[in-house]
């Protein structure tokens, strides 16, 4: 009985791991194999000679490929700038979103005020909107005020995507904190602001930090806003650079497939780190987010 059970569990675990890892493996394989190996039939599952040179050429180094010196690919400068811009935008979005949502979430969780129910409903409703619906007005509006092609503009739009989500999670989080400590602090003469700073902030730090990580990842992974608002400009983030390779223009020469794939691999490294660290907390965090429109996108 236990043997059969263990065997079943083992096989299903194997299948689950296969399902989750196969696409990532497919990409990794392309990034490491030479064009000749890619076309081999039967397929080479493990590259005979891993070509780490693809990664080097993507980030701007010249290396020796099969005895020949090959320079970095044409877009390496955009790619590196894209990585930097992505990191800047994601970090700025996280800090600002946490600041606003921290205050808003606390207010929603602790105070009663007019239209509270309506505002909560609107907050939820905004999560069911397709991102592209929000994008159209920004396209029209940013053109007028000259914010297209700037990191500031992109960060502003990312706040629209992240603030409702972060606020929603934090409302639930603050609701679960004990009120007694706050009341005691108020009696001892703390102002409301110092209650927030000296009591709420320290005890909610772990929760706030984990929501912050998700917000960072949402901004890092965002694609369509970046494509239309900053794509092709010096303020571009990573996704538009790679999109231009895969979709726009002519089909790339076969030997560049590996290089481009290494670009995608580099850009998902944060995702891999986050999921390894997060598996511990994910069921505890209670991200019951009805309408997680862009979560993980």
């Amino acid at each position, binding site marked *: 009985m236990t043997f059969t059970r*263990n065997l079943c*569990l083992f096989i299903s*675990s194997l299948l*689950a*791991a296969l*399902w*989750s*890892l*196969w*696409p990532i*493996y*497919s990409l990794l*394989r*392309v990034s490491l194999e030479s064009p000749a190996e*890619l076309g081999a*039939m*039967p*397929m080479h599952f493990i590259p005979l000679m891993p070509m780490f040179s693809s990664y080097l050429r993507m980030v701007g180094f010249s290396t020796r490929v099969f005895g020949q010196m090959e320079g970095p690919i044409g877009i390496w400068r955009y790619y590196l700038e894209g990585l930097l811009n992505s990191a800047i935008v994601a970090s700025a979005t996280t800090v600002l979103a946490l600041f606003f949502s921290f205050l808003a979430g606390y207010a929603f969780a602790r105070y009663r005020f007019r239209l509270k129910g309506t505002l909560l409903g*609107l907050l939820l409703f*905004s*999560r*069911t*909107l*397709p*991102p*592209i*619906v*929000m994008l*159209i*007005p920004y396209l029209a*509006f940013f*053109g*007028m005020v000259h914010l297209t092609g700037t990191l500031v503009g992109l960060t502003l739009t990312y706040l*629209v995507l992240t*603030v*409702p989500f972060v606020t929603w999670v934090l409302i639930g989080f603050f609701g679960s904190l004990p009120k007694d400590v706050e009341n005691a602090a108020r009696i001892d003469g703390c102002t409301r602001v110092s209650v927030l700073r000296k009591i709420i902030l320290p005890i909610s730090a772990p929760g706030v930090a984990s929501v912050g990580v998700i917000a960072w990842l949402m901004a890092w992974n*965002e*694609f*369509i806003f970046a494509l*239309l608002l900053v794509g092709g400009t010096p303020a571009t983030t990573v*996704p538009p650079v790679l*999109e231009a390779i*895969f979709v726009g223009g002519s089909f790339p020469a076969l030997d560049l497939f590996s290089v481009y*794939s290494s670009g995608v691999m580099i*850009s*998902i490294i944060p*995702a*891999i780190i986050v*999921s*390894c660290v*997060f598996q*511990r907390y994910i*069921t505890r965090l*209670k991200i019951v*987010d*009805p*309408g997680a*429109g862009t979560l*993980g*996108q």
Partner: protein
Amino acid sequence: MLVFYPLAYSFWLSLNNANPLLGNKYVFVGFQQYTKTLTDPDFYSSLSVTLQYTFEALIISTFFALGLALLLNEPMRGRSVLRAIVLLPWAVAAWAAGAMFRYVLDAEFGTLNGLLNALGFLPTYVQWITYGSAVTALSVATSWNITPLGAFFILAALQTVPEDLMKAAKVDGAGITRRFRYVVLPYIRYALLITIVVNTIMVATSLDTLFLLTTGGPGTSTTSLTFRIFQIAYDELNLGGAAATSFILVAVICILTIAYFMMLSRVSARGRT
């Protein structure tokens, strides 16, 4: 404010004839954009793509989410490793998922062909993304991306099922299907519904995976409503038409969501009597 200003602005746009190339002069045309959209044959073909895409991806991702959650709920060695692996697709960007599935499904050097060939199922390589199958391929790619979220919703609910109840049911001689139906299901029904609603919204509004995997093609076989909105706004530069189409998409999503909640309330009402 950040959210509702653009929304109102978008609605205003949808009533206008706005073309960014002609400057910022908007011409008020009332509901003309809506009537134009609703009489456009392209609109109906992309609506049916969206519906098929949503339906297929929903079925795949919900079953996989349930299966993965049940698996992760079993006590076993290496569970935290498996949990990290299963969570991984959630953290990967949707556009990156599209790029990855290109290399899974590619006819020449895709790994799916390679694997099936090595196992002896497939003597020659197959073109997976064709006019007829592109939506299904897209559904699989999207499901890969969104399944973990649902799996962890359901897993959180599964952990609330009291162990005594499971033991009692076992002692009473309930088989595994009956145990699932009468003991587990009532506890996870809410999580399951949330998963379905969230997944529906995510698929119906998704664009990134599609963009990198098929870019609306072959032909117009994967031109979903979201991609159609993108085309109207970006290629035809008709912001008003794009805004109108997007409001119709929001209406479709609202109808689907309301339908789920009505189904749920009926199911739970029947359960009580």
